[in-house]
């Protein structure tokens, strides 16, 4: 009997194998959507089903949040990419054989991310994340332009170094767990490590956490280690930018949080909270200032992703049920909104034939419907009510204010700076004399509208079931 948690990994991998052999991009795109839909269904089944703890897999209240977001956004991105990629073939930026490769890689990446999320073994989790990273490297270089190759190379070097350091941290965790759990597989198993956290060697645990924070922190895009992120977002195909921002950063964050739970379980080890608070704040404020100098629209939103990941890491660093709840909620809202924005940016780039902000003017005149959706999405990510991002940002700031009034000023300051920059750029693109070409957009607008509606719904009314679910997850985080 195959269980749902096996399906979320097996369906994408099987689909990848099949998609390699499927000629013709229309069939391939349809199969891609079908596979993503099946994975999403399996994800939903997991949400309503029972938790699982086996030797190699774990499904609990905490990672199910991530799996749900992952499969949902994977599905909508597949929908978006089906219509987007057709346009890329028509304009000759991609050849059909590349698209076949692209679809197979997309599924393999989804499978690897899901593998990383359900793994109950710190080694397997690392392997999943590494595979997903390597696949995205290839995807970022897909257009084969000099810029794309530079971006992919930079991404590859930084991500490999990060992931190597994370692996060293993983080995150290194993060593730290050995005195309590003995040799072999048990000392690499989450659930067992978690239970034995208090008996782990605190000194090795400290060292391990530093390596893990730097290693996985590179993948999350935390400030001094973020250099790969804007380039990788800007040069790859837009659906990949959406998946990078919306999902891959989350998976890395998930790994980091799991280890934080471990370290927090050993009172003699260092307190991971303050370290994460500092790194989060540095990323948030740094990225907010960097937003002002961006001239490429995808880079702009890539920096905005760094900003929000900083805020999320800050929230989890603060810890406690309320801040964790707000952090989780913000992560979910950011995933949905940011991938929605990237869908809209994909439309805009196709409509105007450029990603340069200076050459995108007067959208409200030439593409009124697209302009409205894009403007709403940008306002949502800025944290304007009534969208869900407002709710989560408000929660993060108020809970910080209640505990450390002075500390709350810093994230508030960073968010305001970022808000100003995004609003300024939004105005640039919306109004003024239209310049340059104005093509008709063929890509489907269903995914971005759907994301925006979900974020709006969450902002207006958060169903009690969802609240209770996130609360349980937040409690697990401690």
């Amino acid at each position, binding site marked *: 009997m195959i269980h749902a948690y096996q399906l979320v990994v097996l369906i994408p991998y099987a689909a990848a194998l099949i998609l390699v052999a499927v000629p013709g991009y229309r069939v391939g795109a349809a199969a891609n959507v079908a596979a993503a839909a099946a994975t999403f269904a399996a994800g939903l089944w997991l949400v309503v089903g029972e938790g699982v703890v086996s030797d190699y897999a774990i499904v609990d209240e905490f990672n199910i949040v991530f799996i749900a977001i992952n499969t949902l956004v994977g599905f909508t991105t597949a929908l978006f990419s089906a219509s987007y990629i057709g346009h890329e073939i028509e304009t000759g930026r991609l050849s059909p054989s590349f698209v076949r490769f692209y679809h197979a890689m997309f599924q393999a990446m989804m499978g690897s991310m899901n593998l990383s999320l359900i793994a109950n*073994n710190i*080694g*397997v989790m*690392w*392997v999943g994340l*590494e*595979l997903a990273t*390597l696949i995205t*490297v*290839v995807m970022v*270089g897909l257009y*084969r332009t*000099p*810029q794309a*190759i*530079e*971006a*992919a*190379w*930079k991404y*590859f*070097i930084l991500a*490999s*170094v990060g992931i*190597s*350091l994370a*692996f*060293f941290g993983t*080995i150290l965790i*194993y*060593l730290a767990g*050995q*005195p309590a759990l*003995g*040799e*072999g*597989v048990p*000392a*690499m198993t989450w659930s067992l490590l978690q239970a034995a956290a208090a008996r782990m*060697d605190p*000194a*090795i645990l*400290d*060292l391990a956490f530093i390596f893990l924070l730097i290693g996985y922190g590179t993948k999350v895009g935390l400030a001094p280690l973020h250099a790969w992120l*804007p*380039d990788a977002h*800007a*040069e790859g195909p837009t659906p990949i930018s959406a998946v990078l921002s919306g999902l891959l950063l989350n998976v890395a964050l998930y790994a980091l949080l799991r280890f934080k739970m471990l370290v927090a379980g050993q009172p003699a080890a260092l307190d991971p909270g303050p370290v994460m608070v500092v790194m989060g704040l540095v990323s948030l404020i740094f990225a907010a200032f960097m937003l002002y*100098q*961006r*001239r*490429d629209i995808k*880079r702009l939103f890539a920096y905005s992703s760094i900003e929000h990941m900083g805020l999320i890491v800050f929230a989890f660093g603060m810890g406690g049920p309320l801040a964790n709840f707000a952090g989780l909620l913000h992560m979910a809202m950011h995933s949905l909104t940011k991938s929605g924005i990237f869908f809209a940016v994909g439309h805009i780039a196709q409509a105007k034939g450029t990603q340069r902000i200076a050459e995108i003017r007067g959208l409200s005149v030439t593409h009124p419907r697209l302009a409205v959706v894009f403007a709403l999405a940008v306002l949502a990510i800025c944290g304007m009510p009534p969208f869900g991002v407002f709710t989560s940002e408000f929660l993060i700031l108020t809970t910080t204010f209640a505990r450390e009034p002075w500390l709350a000023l810093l994230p508030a300051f960073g968010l305001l700076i970022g808000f100003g920059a995004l609003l300024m750029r939004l105005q640039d693109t919306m109004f003024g004399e239209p310049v340059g070409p104005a093509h008709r957009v063929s890509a489907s607008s269903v995914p971005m509208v759907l994301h925006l509606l979900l974020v709006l719904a969450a902002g207006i009314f958060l169903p009690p079931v969802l609240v209770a679910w996130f609360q349980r997850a937040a409690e697990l985080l401690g």
Partner: protein
Amino acid sequence: MLNAFAAQSITLALAVAWAAWSDDRPDLFITALIALTLKGIVIPVALHRTVARLGIHREVEKVVGVGAALMVGLALTGLAQALVLKVATGMASHAREDLALALAIILLGFLMMIVRRNAVTQVVGFMSMENGLILAATGARGMPLVVEVSVAFSVLISLFVFAVFVFRIRERFDTVDLEALDRMRGDGR
């Protein structure tokens, strides 16, 4: 340089094989075999061929001078030793040494990636880091083989990715010197 990497990999294979024999863990022989064939022979030969085909023997550009790089390398090795010896007080002495050595190799690989601006040397630096990781993994007694095999596997994939990129970089820029890449900043700063 490539020969040094091959020698490092073969030494690693020997170390792992010795660990397999002395700890009586036959599964480690597989790891040793992978290190020997893949990293000791296949990858260096493949890279030698790449280098010969691209004709880039004389293109090794350094950011820092040899002397300075050597000093930094020494300092990093010392740091690794001091750090591990201080932290890992509760471990068996040979495991501790293993870990210290592994950390030193990782940091040196890191250093190599930073001071050489050439795509091929960065590849070698990265794989040297991976060697350090495998040493650390075998030094940790009883770490499951699953992980080691997958590391070897991922190294293989990385090589593939590297190869693709090295060729593409060559194709686009007529050089594998990464300085050429730095001219292309997509953001037009």
